[in-house]
């Protein structure tokens, strides 16, 4: 198989120092193949967000390596890491993190504005560009941004909120805006931190379906972090994390990803 789009090895993260130094993520090795929809499940405080931050280049690990798009993420300069993030990753934050001074429309377009006019710096990274493995879109093909924005606005029913500012939105609306922002530039890999945490189960299901479609139709890769087992059912693989440790032996994949399978594993791991 091809080089996985994301690969981690022996990832550790400690917080605090001296006596209070505790590992939040312990020895996590994980591979995500391009075009796959991968979920990491775990209880609150298990280190999910921390893991996601490390693999997306937002927070350096205490030890271990992360390869993203074939590049050693933390071997890169801060600048190149940032550009890699810009070109490769769409991130959905657990706490939406919208920019208060920008309208909904502008918040959604933010990644487009950031990338505007800039050549993809890491085109040589092998997997750069949305949907390289499927879909048929060539890397960074002149994407019709307007159509993409319109599509996302339509899907997320944000049409009448475009001119609103974040503080005028409901929690679910903010959540949707932040998902739309992650998708708008068609990044090769989407990393989502509990994207359904604040929305109704129906809206949550729509978001998950959209992710699924991005994966199937556009060939984008998805890395989802959640404690919601229903979300996990949309994915190709499910990994379980507890106390910062990834229980690789319990991972489910393919046909194994069923409601019962997930429930069993959670019960077995006493999550």
């Amino acid at each position, binding site marked *: 198989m091809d080089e996985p789009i994301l690969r981690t090895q022996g990832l550790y993260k400690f917080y605090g120092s001296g006596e209070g130094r505790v590992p939040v993520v312990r020895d996590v090795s994980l591979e995500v193949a391009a075009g796959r929809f991968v979920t990491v499940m775990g209880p609150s405080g298990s280190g999910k967000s921390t893991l996601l*931050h490390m693999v*997306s280049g*937002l*927070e*350096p690990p205490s030890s271990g390596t992360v390869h993203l798009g074939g590049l050693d993420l933390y071997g890169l300069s*801060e*600048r190149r890491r*940032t*550009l890699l*993030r*810009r*070109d490769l*990753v769409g*991130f959905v*934050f657990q*706490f*939406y*993190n*919208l*920019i*208060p*001074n*920008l309208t909904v429309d*502008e918040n959604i377009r*933010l*990644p487009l*504005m*950031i*990338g*505007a006019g800039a050549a993809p710096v890491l085109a040589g990274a092998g997997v750069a560009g949305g949907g390289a493995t499927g879909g048929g879109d060539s890397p960074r093909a002149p994407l019709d941004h307007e159509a993409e924005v319109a599509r996302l606005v339509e899907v997320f029913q944000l049409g009448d909120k475009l001119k609103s500012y*974040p*503080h*005028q*939105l409901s*929690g679910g609306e903010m959540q949707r805006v932040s998902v739309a*922002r992650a998708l708008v530039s068609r990044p090769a890999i989407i990393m989502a931190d509990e994207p359904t945490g604040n929305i109704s189960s129906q809206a949550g299901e729509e978001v998950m379906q959209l992710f699924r479609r991005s994966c199937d139709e556009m060939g984008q890769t998805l890395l989802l972090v959640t404690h919601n087992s229903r979300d996990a059912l949309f994915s190709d693989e499910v990994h379980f994390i507890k106390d910062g440790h990834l229980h690789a032996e319990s991972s489910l994949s393919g046909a194994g990803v069923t409601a019962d399978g997930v429930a069993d594993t959670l019960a077995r791991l006493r999550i």
Partner: protein
Amino acid sequence: MKLILLLAWRHLVFRPGKTLLSALGIGLGIATVVAVLTVDHNTLLSQHARRSFTDPESDLLIQPLERNPAAYPRQAAALRSHDFLKGVTAFATGKWTVRSQVTEDGPAGKETTFRGSGVDVMAVESSAVDHHAAYVVDEGADLDFGSDEPQLLLSRWVAEQIGVTVGDLVELVRPPARQRVVTRCVDGKMVKIVPGAAGRRQGGGPPTTDDDRALLFRVVGLLAPTNLGFARHRVLTTMSQGVKLFGDDLSVHFWADFDMAAIDFLGVEAALRNSFTIKEPKRALAGQAPEEAAFRSGVRLCGFLALFLGLYVIFNTMSMSLVERVRQIGLLRALGVTRGRLAGIFLVEGGVLALLGAGLSVLLAERIVAVMVAARITTLGFGKPLEIHEVPYGPVVGVMVAGVVFSLLGVVYPFLRASKLSVIDALRRGVIEMSRQPFKGTRRSVLLGLLALVPVAWFVGAPGGHVVAQPLWEAFLQATGIVAGVMALLLVFQGMLPSAVKALLSVFRGPTITLAKSTVSGARHRVFATISGLMLVFAAVFLVVSVLESLKSETRGFSAAALDDRLFVKLNPEAAALSATLRGSVPETRSLLPINTEVFTAFLVRSVDARMLGVGSLAGDKDLTRAYRERPTLILSTRCADDFGYVTDDRVTLVTDADGPVEFRVLAVTDEYGFAPDDRIFAAVSPENMRRYWCRESNNQPGWYVAWAPGLADDDLEELAARIEGVVGAGRLLDLRLGREIGSEYLAQHDRDFAIFYAILVLTVMLAAIGVLNAMFIAVMERRREIGLLRAVGLTGGQVARMLLVESGAFGVVGGVLGLVLGIPLAIIAARALTALSHLDLVFVLSPRALGSVLAGAILVAVVAVLLPALRANHMKLSRIMRYE
């Protein structure tokens, strides 16, 4: 780029209050300094503009002590050897008759004199016109200083009188002897002397000039009626011709300017004292008298301080406003914005603010200057002439650039800090805290660098040797060291400030206090910026108030010696004749003695009756009184002695009218004698000596008389005043003042003179207030969620406001106390520097007024500045807060 502009623009527009405040802070900081620079520049220009346009533009008129025509080249060379003297120019004058040339076939020569005693023929060196712009040639050419041909420049009036024009030849003829009679002071009598008779007493040299010999000169040009040409009867020639023309009568004087950056007037006087005397020094003293020099130094130092404080507040304003946006920085970085571009966003924003501020500063500075002009506040004290002639664009632009640069530094510094955080840290924390390791961080390195610089600069010495006066330079270094030291201490032990605030807050109880305490420990950056800003500004307040108090206490000392128990009366000439009668008819006026006769040598010399010595500290010293009356002796005022560096028993050479330079012995140094209500630098000589050496009579002159009766109360003096008025008649009593009144006028004058310092201080205090305001606004913004939550769970708006007030009040107390801690050593340094600079005997006084104004001021500013943010917190929309982000 679009993104950069969009974000910058939105941030500026969506928080108009903050934008305006920041711009105002920057603008006010710049405007203060610009206004001081402009006023200072124009104060000097206005002083300059007062110079009479009939004189050459020269700072000094120097007369050699030795009056020997042959010594002229040596004297000139001696003067030119001093680096600080510029444009040393010799000149000499004499009275001559000018006659148009008698030609063989033409009419007899017309001749002209002026008021029967010849016209003023002045011989000058070329630098008279090159350096001093002493004259302007209206028609024809200038004198050819290189040639030996006898040439003249005539005033138009002279030319018309004798009907000559450019190119003609004229004759210079000595006026007949009777017209050349001069009066000289000989043994206390003015004696008429006919030159050639008594004039050449010794008969040493052969008579060089045949009295009636005519000397032929060519008229090369006519003078414009300005400066030297303003006198109608003016004739100019070259110095080389003058030497021949005046012969033994040659009496050379010199014009010269001095380099005011290198030396003050007293320095010049001291350097020349042995062979020269400076006549009419008052002209040189525009902004140069020691007190004035010290005053201007003080103002400039204060302006410098304002610049420093302004830049500090600007820096903090900008940096704090960025601190609250760390989350945004984190988010943008998470989304793939590189640091470079991020910096772009904030620099654009900061740049716009800074330019806005700079623009605002132009308007503000214009207003401030207008107010100062209207209030007659100058950098030479109160009430000096002040018109705005021009703006010193160089320094003004420099200050503006510095303001803008510091604004941008204020943006870059926290930005660098913020972008060092991991993206997630930035997102989570939302604020940056000061680094906890004591010897790291930009701010620290800057401060420690500054600390290290002080000893280095100390050894290297003042820039350019003379650009800054040595005492000022030392004071500056000491002050810098102390300020940097205190700031470094605060940074190294940065827990101190929050702890102090918390300890203060512990005095109070209640939930709001608990909240205030908790927020204080979580906001070191804000606490540090706010308190250090208050500290610096109020240290400056303390400094100025203390110096004023020191000055006042010095004045009180002078009052006690020279003013108390005295009555000063100014009589018109007829009444002056009555003064002797007065002494008889109003018994207490026995001591009503004239102090009205003055001559000006290097300083003011006033005749004071020896009977005055019967009162005061010299009373009873018979030998001294006799010496005062009979020997060439004088009594110096303390300031005169200090300024010119004389002590008792020194010899002071004064140029007398009778005998030229004469050595006078200093009998005593005291202010008790000879003071008239306008001058503190004087020497007292006896009327006998005044007559003997200057041929001036004390009696029957209009002017000031003093009645001095120790132990007389004010009431007695007033009654005495009434009786004197009764005897001489109201119309003839020109002025009458109680010594004590004059003393309080002096004190009031200090207050008025200090208006400029207060103006600067008020502006910097306002600046500090804006700094606090900004900090507290940021505190409110930072804590909006927390505040919202507290409000949601039942804390009233009033309680929130109280929390902020209490917190800010505590900042005020700590800032004020630290201001004192810093201000006291600074004030001591300032008093010492001023003593060295001005020869005033300033002693640092720890005045309750200074203490009180600093503490009360700091608390007031902190509390007032928090009102607006408190109001804001009170009116925050809960829904908005809780949903935000």
